[in-house]
């Protein structure tokens, strides 16, 4: 792998953002916010508890979809940003450009605090396995014992990154080719989270 993951994390974890004079953060082609991470967990817990068994999977699917659309649009913005081009760009080899970009994207994913996550297996255009050793979505285990894996954001973003790299059409028309199944979960007692992305 051409990507120096630690250097990417060291460089990009230093980026600080804050609202402009209007309190808005336009960056990477989207509007950004930096809410307490707990907000996303608390709302997800509340809506899943309210959904009960009958609507649980429907509500969970919508939470995962939010992550995937976020990952698709923001992911595209990230890999086309000046920051990505300056830090990750020089590490990308022409012959493995898509794979290197994906590894770089997960280094950024980690640097920004979404999850301490990396790709542990990648079959270009077919399959990816992502492992997450620490992630804020797992913090729900302290107050809510989910019956099923709860890392909807990581699941959605991971499959979206595969769509960006190997979708049937280039961005913005290649969304939805890949799906993700979370196969291990810290929030359910495993020592790390694992995510299987396939077509």
């Amino acid at each position: 792998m051409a990507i120096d993951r630690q250097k990417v994390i060291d460089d990009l974890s230093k980026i600080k953002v804050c609202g402009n004079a209007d309190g808005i953060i336009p960056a990477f082609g989207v509007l950004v916010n930096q809410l307490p991470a707990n907000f996303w967990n608390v709302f997800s817990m509340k809506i899943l508890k309210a959904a009960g068994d009958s609507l649980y999977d429907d509500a969970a699917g919508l939470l995962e979809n939010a992550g995937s659309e976020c990952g698709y649009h923001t992911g595209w913005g990230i890999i086309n940003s000046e920051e990505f081009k300056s830090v990750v760009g020089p590490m990308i080899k022409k012959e493995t450009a898509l794979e290197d970009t994906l590894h770089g994207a997960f280094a950024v994913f980690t640097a920004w605090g979404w999850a301490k996550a990396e790709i542990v297996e990648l079959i270009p255009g077919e399959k990816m396995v992502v492992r997450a050793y620490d992630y804020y979505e797992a913090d729900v285990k302290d107050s809510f014992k989910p019956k099923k894996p709860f890392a909807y954001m990581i699941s959605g973003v991971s499959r979206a990154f595969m769509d960006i790299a190997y979708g049937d059409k280039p961005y913005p028309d290649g969304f939805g080719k890949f799906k993700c199944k979370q196969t291990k979960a810290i929030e359910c007692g495993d020592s790390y989270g694992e995510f299987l992305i396939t077509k």
Partner: protein
Amino acid sequence: MSNTFQAQHKFDPAAMRHYLNGELSVLHCHHYTALFTQLANDAKLLKGAQQMTEAAAETMFPPLQKYFKDNQIIDKKIRAEAASAYFAYIGLGKVQIDLEAGKAIMTHSHIDEGWKKKWGNAAKSINFIGQGFLMAAAAAIENSTPSAYNVDETESIACGKNASKFTITKK
């Protein structure tokens, strides 16, 4: 406005987590926020809007309360300005809070502008996160609890107005 907020960022290189004034924080985009808000808005059977407002109030109250304590901010007007500065710093927009008059005016809003950017105008107000923030702000300013306040959005940027307007009343 954001320049007046005293922010301390810390990155934990072991867990790869970011902290803003000691509070675990994470960057997300307007797509994520808009889709969560849409879920809350659509899930009427589950009281989704209320769940979102309460989640925002519960999770933004502690950082505001801590900020006032750490910076020894006692005066209520200065607290209101500091709450607005926090709101702006984290990218939620520009809001002026007047608790004496029981109102707040938001001239910029991440939630509303993000919604419009994604889908155009909304049929009704959708800033449940903003409502929760104002409950948290009112409570932190007055040394109370978020659940002691009702916040209603009476005009909305998402619906085409130039500014969003909120009423804040104590129960």
